């Protein structure tokens, strides 16, 4: 099981391995393919009759969270092709919320851009002058403009309120949906503007459709995905919505663009089955003794099949068995 950790807890060796793997993916073209995938999803209106500004394959609709979960997992698997011990780190911007936070140090993401040089990043491994980070889209240099477009990051209170919001999403399944956990987290409603605000706070390359050009994109979205995982754990009886009848590409069993027909919101709901979890998500509770007794009595034919099945159902309802 891959456990995704807070980037502020990584030691220098873990940070170096992560950065090195990013540079390998950049040099072999994999990284830029992921950037293009995000640009393409941003431009794909869903349905095709609306503007991609209204809803697209990955934003402003219910599949915002499933799409990015799948995208991150595929990217993480590419990192693990380089180094099997790497997991995507997350950036908890409610805590590491300044331009001097550890994430921006020169051995990790590097700092903000130089305002007298078109906000180009000039420090750290992704500085254009390093020769390792040339952008094929919206380049040539990575740019940041930290704290200008938005002067603060989302707060813990805003995140706590978001995690308490039900249901997952609501009609009309777009940037106006309310109440909607997805829309509050994505940032089109509420003062927090949670996910969107982080893109704006970093500024520069992170404000564009090619935002994955900035590696901090993956740390930001890893945190967004962690919050969705927390919401799923807090609200076990709440389902993904819409199950059907919503816009194309956003229903529970709709194909997520550009992947195959087996990649749907339903296919990504169980992140543990997908092979990862977060260091803030508790593991399943221990199996109680009475379950062992029921299993033994059933094997001895002392109780009925129905009684045994009831114990299995209890394990499912309490998230010990995940389907």
């Amino acid at each position, binding site marked *: 099981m891959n456990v995704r950790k807070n980037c502020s807890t990584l030691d220098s060796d873990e940070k170096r391995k992560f950065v090195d793997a990013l540079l390998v993916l950049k040099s072999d073209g994999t990284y830029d393919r992921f950037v293009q995938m995000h640009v393409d999803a941003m431009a794909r209106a869903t349905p095709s009759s609306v503007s991609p500004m209204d809803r697209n394959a990955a934003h402003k609709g219910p599949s915002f969270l499933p799409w990015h979960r799948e995208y991150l997992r595929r990217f993480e698997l590419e990192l693990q092709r380089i180094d099997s011990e790497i997991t995507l780190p997350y950036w908890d911007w409610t805590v590491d919320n300044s331009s001097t936070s550890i994430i921006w140090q020169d051995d990790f993401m590097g700092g903000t851009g130089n305002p007298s040089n078109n*906000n180009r990043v000039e420090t750290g491994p992704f500085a254009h002058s390093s020769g390792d980070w040339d952008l094929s889209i919206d380049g040539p240099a990575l*740019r940041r403009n930290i704290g200008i477009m938005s002067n603060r990051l989302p707060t813990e209170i805003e995140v706590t309120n978001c995690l308490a919001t039900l249901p997952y999403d609501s009609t009309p399944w777009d940037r106006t949906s309310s109440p909607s956990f997805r829309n509050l987290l994505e940032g089109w409603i509420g003062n927090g503007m949670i996910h969107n605000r982080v893109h704006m706070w970093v*500024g520069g390359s992170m404000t564009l459709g090619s935002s994955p050009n900035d590696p901090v994109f993956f740390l930001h979205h890893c945190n967004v995905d962690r919050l969705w995982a927390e919401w799923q754990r807090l609200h076990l009886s709440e389902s993904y919505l819409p199950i059907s009848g919503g816009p194309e590409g956003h229903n529970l069993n709709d194909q997520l663009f550009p992947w195959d027909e087996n990649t749907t919101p339903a296919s990504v709901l169980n992140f543990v089955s997908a092979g990862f979890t977060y260091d803030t998500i508790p593991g399943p509770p221990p199996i109680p003794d009475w379950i062992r007794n029921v299993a033994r009595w059933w094997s001895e034919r002392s109780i009925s099949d129905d009684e045994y099945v009831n114990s299995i159902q209890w394990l499912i309802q309490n998230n010990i068995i995940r389907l």
Partner: protein
Amino acid sequence: MSEINHNGKKIQIVGDETPQKLLIDQKEFSFIFDNDTKTFSSLLLPYSRHDTLEDLGKAIVDNVGDI
């Protein structure tokens, strides 16, 4: 028409009522006005909305790079 200089670029808002035009160094940029939220946005900046066309122009100058 209003005109400001921002970080070395000339931002011009042409027309007092809709439809207005947004020009940055004489180049026109398309935008969308959302009647529900009374905000301006651009395909160039998909994560943000802006209260005024001037704010959108400044954000494009500050973030979109070589324009």
